[in-house]
């Protein structure tokens, strides 16, 4: 029999994590599905389970200037309707899943799963997220691209849990979020795209591009983003073929029961190009 622990406080949760190997379960919308079994029988959980969803101390949304701080047990639904949450993230949350799933699921859970198709993960990349991990000793911060190691694997140590996600917003002029799922809602992304740009007087001040479900992790190429900062929109327009070429080798999707490699790749490139052309049209 597995041990089931419902900690009453963060400290209690961390005590357990310090003592033994626990599977942290938050909203459960992924783990309860993955471990489902014949109805009315025990789920296929193999490890001791730590249920953190009810830790109210981690249910918060705060904003300090351009940094959005999201507690680990905050539901996606709370985020969707919160004034501090930027519109590009709301667009994502709206299409992420149905209301019931949004009420159960959390951003930290989505990040913890580290599925390359995770829509929350995509937004966390887009907004240069920092993951705040905590254990009995203290906290450490890890940038999202260092945190996610590959599909389902992360930098989290077994005695740690996610306490908070910090997202770095900007006064974007134009943002886009595209989820390409099997249907209009309630689906797993075949590919996803998020882009954001801030420009002043025809000069790009900030640009972010994240592409999901087309590689082992979300694609976000900081070097291209850096290269584009400070350039004029006109220069960007001329560089579109080069930019596409820069992303192309990163896009290495798979075939599965939901879609195929060539579709995912083509669509990801189309969405990237459409985003760039939209920016270019603002010249």
């Amino acid at each position: 029999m597995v041990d089931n622990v419902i900690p009453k406080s963060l400290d209690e949760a961390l005590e357990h994590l310090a003592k033994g190997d626990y599977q942290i379960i938050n909203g459960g919308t992924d783990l309860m599905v993955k471990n489902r079994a014949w109805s009315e029988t025990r789920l296929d959980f193999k490890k001791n389970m730590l249920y953190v969803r009810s830790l109210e101390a981690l249910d918060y949304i705060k904003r300090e200037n351009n940094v959005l701080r999201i507690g680990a047990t905050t539901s996606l639904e709370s985020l969707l309707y919160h004034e501090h949450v930027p519109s590009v993230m709301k667009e994502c949350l709206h299409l992420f899943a149905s209301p019931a799933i949004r009420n159960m699921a959390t951003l930290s859970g989505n990040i913890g799963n580290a599925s390359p198709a995770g829509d929350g993960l995509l937004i966390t990349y887009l907004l240069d997220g920092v993951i705040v991990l905590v254990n009995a000793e203290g906290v450490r911060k890890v940038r999202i691209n260092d945190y996610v190691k590959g599909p389902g694997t992360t930098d989290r140590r077994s005695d740690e849990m996610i306490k908070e996600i910090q997202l770095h917003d900007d006064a974007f002029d134009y943002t886009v979020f595209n989820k390409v799922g099997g249907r209009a809602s309630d689906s797993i992304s075949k590919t996803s795209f998020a882009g954001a740009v801030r420009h002043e007087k025809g000069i790009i001040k900030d640009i972010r591009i994240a592409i999901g479900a087309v590689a082992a992790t979300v694609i976000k190429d900081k070097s291209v983003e850096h290269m584009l900062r400070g350039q004029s929109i006109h220069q960007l327009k001329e560089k579109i073929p080069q930019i596409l070429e820069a992303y192309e080798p990163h896009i290495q999707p798979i075939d599965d029961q939901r879609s195929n490699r060539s579709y995912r790749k083509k669509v990801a490139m189309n969405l990237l190009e459409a985003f760039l052309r939209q920016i270019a049209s603002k010249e």
Partner: protein
Amino acid sequence: MKTIDFILNGKPIRSELSADRRFLDVLRKELGLTGAKEGCGEGECGACSVLLDGKIVQSCILPLASVDGKTVMTIEGYKKTKKFKAIETAFLKEGASQCGICTPGMVMATEYLLKNNPAPSYDEIRHGLSGNLCRCTGYNMIFNAIRRAAKEGEGLW
């Protein structure tokens, strides 16, 4: 013995069941409340929808642990409310229920939708119901029923 305590349809429940039990199984098997249905067991169809602290959730992927200290409303409790009567009448008048297996879940989704948005547009209804699959109706009559419930039950939400 660790217990899990919650309020179900207004009554306190103390459960000694394991925290990893699916809440749907607790409702149906242990408590004999069969209004929430199992259509898929993976949180996709919404036939098992219940309200947890007033928010719609899918009970087939809800661990019992998640209801600890919370308030749950199922169709068995909700059907005693005035709001339910307004929804019931609207569903009957508009033909929103055919085989009925998704209907209790649709009713819970309707309650959650109208609570947050007492006069939803068709588009808002579409997204509000997007976690509740129906294979019989093509949904249009459900949309109309919700519009009717919102109109005729005005003031309830």
